[in-house]
């Protein structure tokens, strides 16, 4: 194994990969709007664009991965959302990223990292809902949202692992 920790190891490669992944978040967010996941659990989303956040975490040094996540939240929020969805995405995205980063540092595998990302994304969103609404009723959604987070995180993690393996192979 002669891998460098981060495959895109020159500034040009890194900027190019960063730009492609950022563009992909917009495409995936748009695609996700066409999926009727809302019918299963109201307000639940698959979080397809989190695929890119997961990949970013493994392909870039920390500051770049943070930047990718922040730009993803800002771009998709401005393009597809409103003020409310932006607030929830920001809280969910930040908490999700933190959870994924810590799990990765802890040495957990990609699937586990992704599931924790999905779970904590929803924890962050519920926390904002609780803060805005000031109602304990928000907590009634906790089990359904956490379960949805586990499912979505596992699905995103499975696809993410496939993509990352191919990317690593092509860079090695």
């Amino acid at each position, binding site marked *: 194994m002669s891998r460098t920790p981060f495959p895109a190891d020159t500034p040009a490669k890194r900027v190019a990969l960063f730009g492609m992944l950022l563009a992909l978040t917009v495409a995936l967010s748009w695609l996700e709007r066409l999926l009727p996941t809302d019918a299963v659990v*109201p307000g639940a989303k698959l979080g397809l664009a989190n695929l890119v956040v997961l990949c970013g975490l493994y392909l870039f040094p920390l500051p770049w991965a943070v930047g990718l996540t922040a730009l993803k939240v800002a771009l998709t929020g401005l393009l597809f959302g409103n003020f409310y969805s932006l607030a929830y995405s920001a809280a969910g995205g930040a908490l999700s990223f933190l959870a994924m980063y810590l799990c990765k540092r802890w040495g957990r*595998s990609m699937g586990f990292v992704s599931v924790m990302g999905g779970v904590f994304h929803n924890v962050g969103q519920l926390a904002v809902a609780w803060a805005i609404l000031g*109602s304990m009723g928000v907590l*009634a959604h906790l089990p359904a949202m956490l379960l949805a987070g586990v499912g979505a995180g596992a699905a995103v993690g499975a696809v993410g692992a496939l993509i990352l393996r191919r990317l690593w192979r092509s860079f090695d």
Partner: protein
Amino acid sequence: MENRRFMTPREGVCLVLLAAGLALWLFWPGRTGGQAVLTRSGEELGRYALNAPQRVPVQGANGFSLTLVVEGGAAHVEDSTCPDLICQRHAPISRTGEAIICLPGQVTVTIEGGDRLEQDALSG
């Protein structure tokens, strides 16, 4: 070097147990027959017994409005003017602790104080 496996067996078992626990929590038999408690921005607007069918117009925050409908021992939301309509698509709620939330209008409907044990928990 980070862990590049998809998942170890031990992590898989932990996550399945987590999911099973959450599913148990979600489908645990609840109590029905309580009242729907309506709040806006954390302030209680009213309480409506689930056994008395009625329609309650609600003026939410930020200029959004909706109608709380109580019928058949359950509560749901109709005629919402909010952008995402998640509250309106939410299935009717009847179990104690269940809630429908309209985020843009900052309106919540929570079921409280039920005293009848639910007959068919899994269909709930």
